[in-house]
């Protein structure tokens, strides 16, 4: 009886340890089966495109650029400023 109860406890402990180990090893399926290119970053919004991020070297787009859909990157601007999400 004692061997049986200890075995039950061992199943629980090893199962829980396995859960923790696999949780650390594997990504959530939403990340594992998507890619950065396909995933939409929820922190992105039109406002971030219109306003320069604080402390960054990115230049805010001018109204005429939005109007003419001209999103060419200025020569002195970092690539990250115009990378699409």
């Amino acid at each position: 009886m004692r061997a049986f109860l200890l075995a039950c406890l061992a199943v629980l402990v090893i199962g829980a340890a396995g859960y923790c180990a696999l949780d650390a090893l594997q990504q959530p399926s939403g990340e594992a089966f998507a890619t950065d290119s396909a995933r939409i970053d929820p922190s992105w919004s039109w406002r971030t495109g219109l306003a320069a991020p604080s402390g960054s070297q990115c230049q805010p787009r001018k109204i005429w650029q939005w109007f003419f859909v001209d999103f060419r990157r200025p020569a002195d601007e970092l690539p990250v400023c115009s990378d699409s999400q």
Partner: protein
Amino acid sequence: MTIICAHIRLAVTAIALLMLAVAAAPVAAQQPGSVDPNAAAVKEQQLLQDHYFIRGLGTIPDTKSYVVEQPLGRVWRVVHEVWLHWIGSLVILGVVALLAIFYFTRGPILIEGGRSGRTMLRFTSIERFSHWMVAVSFVILGITGLNITFGKELLLPLIGPEAFSLWAIAAKYAHDYSSLPFVIGVVMLFLLWVRKNMLTAVDIEWFKEGGGMIGHSHPPAEKFNGGQKVLFWLVVLGTIGVAATGLFLLFPFYWTDIMGMQLAQVIHALVAIVFVALIIAHIYIGTLGMEGGFDAMSNGEVDLNWAKQHHSLWVEQELGQGRNAAPPAGATTTPAT
């Protein structure tokens, strides 16, 4: 006049040819080599027959997303939704039916001469611990695994979609994580028992006499008889089978593509079905089917008469090494010889 007639003949011939051409057009459209409005569909069917995958073009790094159609997925779905149900039902219910017939015709195998009142240590604490760890996790794996194959048909109509959804999610997690103690337990049992599970000439004789199942003969056996040794090796091989294929499912797309995972799932399910049937028979013989058999795993001690009846060579060996059978607690008797 002749000229007019010639013109009329020409006009009639032209009209006749035109009518013939119009009438023949649908027939011509069905001939090979002609323009077929369904050509695209025909080509797709040919592609489906000739290729494992139909891939498109993509720009994102995840190349798996380029697969537009995988025709073998339909085969897998039929195997999973139809064939596995039939195979699983026939194998598992077949074994249960055979055991029921055996029980009602042969009855349980009793200890001839009754219990002696003296016991022998058959399995140590570590052996029983390993066995129960395998047993407990196997029961969890079996129930949750059968739920994957049969749950939709058997449970869903009974408990409804909400309860079934909760149960299925919990069962899936339980299945994944109880696989670890199961494999660890089988490895422990393998290390503990492998030496005593090598088949010998004694086991051949044991099989020739039907293992004492039929009639009242009791062929000699070592610590493990021929049937137990075969079970041991089937459990080891079955564990390798389910563990290897289970890893492919536990780590999707790590080592194989979708086709490999479908194959792994089918092998996993087939091996597991045979495994479940095998263990049902093992549980029967260890409980209902044999008097005194369960004692070996409940407290580790078996009755001396039971041991002499089913494992006579082991008893001789144990007594020869000076390990006498102990009297029941509180009794004062002389050791068995």
